[in-house]
């Protein structure tokens, strides 16, 4: 199964890197929103330091949806999805491969936006780089796994661009809330400890629970 996931992952990454449709659009969107933030709040004030985590994760959630929306859309032309499933690619392998591809795309957006945000708003987000990397990995995985499952659910809908965020955002709020809170702490150079650790546990628990649910239920969505 892992070999098939790897193939799907490679295929998705290759396709996206050749066309760069979703990546470019999502990156451009993220940068525009980064600029818009400067109008919403005074970019020179101290306040921005306190809410930087919140702003960043709202941004990543929005641009993440643009990315995951494409992942099953790619398979729609020429009935590629059916062909894959008929050729005995397990639905869970398909989903896992796509999730890893989406994770990579979201991390790429983050890799551009985090330094840009740091420079534009004069905040050093990288005081605890390993913690920041951990938070990014865990929270991006949450967006990627749930996003991919819900993208599979909404791929046949006429209003999929609208429905995906409507059902996805309420569901990923726990992970986003945890990521926002932890990013805020880490960006001022404080190691999460004591009560803060409940957010780390929440993030890990969220990933484990939803990954298990997704792997268990994806067959129902795609195959049956």
């Amino acid at each position, binding site marked *: 199964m892992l070999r098939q996931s790897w193939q799907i992952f490679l295929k998705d990454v290759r396709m996206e890197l050749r066309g760069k449709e979703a990546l470019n659009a999502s990156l451009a969107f993220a940068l525009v929103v980064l600029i818009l933030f400067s109008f919403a709040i005074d970019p020179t004030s101290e306040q921005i330091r306190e809410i930087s985590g919140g702003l960043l994760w709202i941004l990543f959630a929005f641009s993440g949806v643009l990315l995951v929306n494409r992942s099953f859309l790619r398979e729609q032309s020429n009935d590629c999805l059916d062909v894959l499933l008929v050729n005995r690619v397990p639905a869970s392998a398909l989903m896992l491969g796509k999730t890893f591809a989406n994770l990579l795309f979201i991390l790429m957006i983050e890799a551009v936006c985090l330094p840009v945000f740091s420079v534009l708003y004069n905040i050093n987000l990288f005081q605890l780089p390993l913690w920041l990397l951990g938070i990014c990995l865990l929270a991006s995985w949450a967006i990627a796994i749930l996003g991919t*499952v819900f993208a599979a659910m909404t791929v046949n809908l006429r209003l999929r661009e609208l429905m995906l965020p*409507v059902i996805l955002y309420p*569901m990923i709020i726990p992970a986003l809330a945890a990521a926002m809170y932890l990013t805020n702490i880490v960006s001022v150079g404080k190691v999460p400890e004591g009560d803060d650790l409940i957010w780390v546990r929440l993030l890990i628990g969220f990933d484990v629970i939803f990954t298990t649910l997704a792997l268990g239920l994806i067959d129902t969505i795609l195959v049956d």
Partner: protein
Amino acid sequence: MFDKILLAIGLTSGLYLVRNLYTMLLVLPDEAAQGMIYRIMFFHIPSWWTCFLSFLVAGVASAIAIRSKSNRADSLAVAATEVGLAFTFVGLATGMIWAKIIWGIWWTWDARLTWAFITALTYAGYLMMRNMIPDPSERLRVTGVLNVFSFASVVICYKAIDWWRTQHPGAVMSFRTGGGSIDPAMEGMTFHNFIAFLLLCIVLVTLRLRQEETLREIEGLRRLAYSR
């Protein structure tokens, strides 16, 4: 016969509610700290219990529906979700009225309240999604999975007062605290109203289930007519 049983349950629920109103307004005294507004809790707490229970039924029914491709279970899931959502809004409204009087504000973003709101949004998304999928078997699969996922927010909402320090009061019922934090008469009243709400919920879910079944039948006939 079935209609009569349903009517009887509905009437029992109505009469029980009237009896409960009499007791809570005329028999029970005002609460020492909160005054008379505490009585709204007799509606607030049972409506949340009823809604959690409805969502549990909906989740289990969805799981059965996707496992055994049962249309009936799918209908039960949508009926229970709709009625549960109505009770969610009762819970939110009564909570907000209480908060305005006790806290001085309608709303605060603490974990319990936020997750209650998220729960409402999640299930509203489920109902919206159902309307968008015309094919019944695809609707059963996709929204069934969504309903199972949605139950996670119910669990978080229920446990939020234990996991975070919330402005929302902590657990008071003796089955969660071991007793001592609520007067037995007031606790009893909460359970009485819960039973009344539960009976009402059963009637509403059954009626809604029947509507859904009829709708499915009409859909089937329409498809048959088109195919001829």
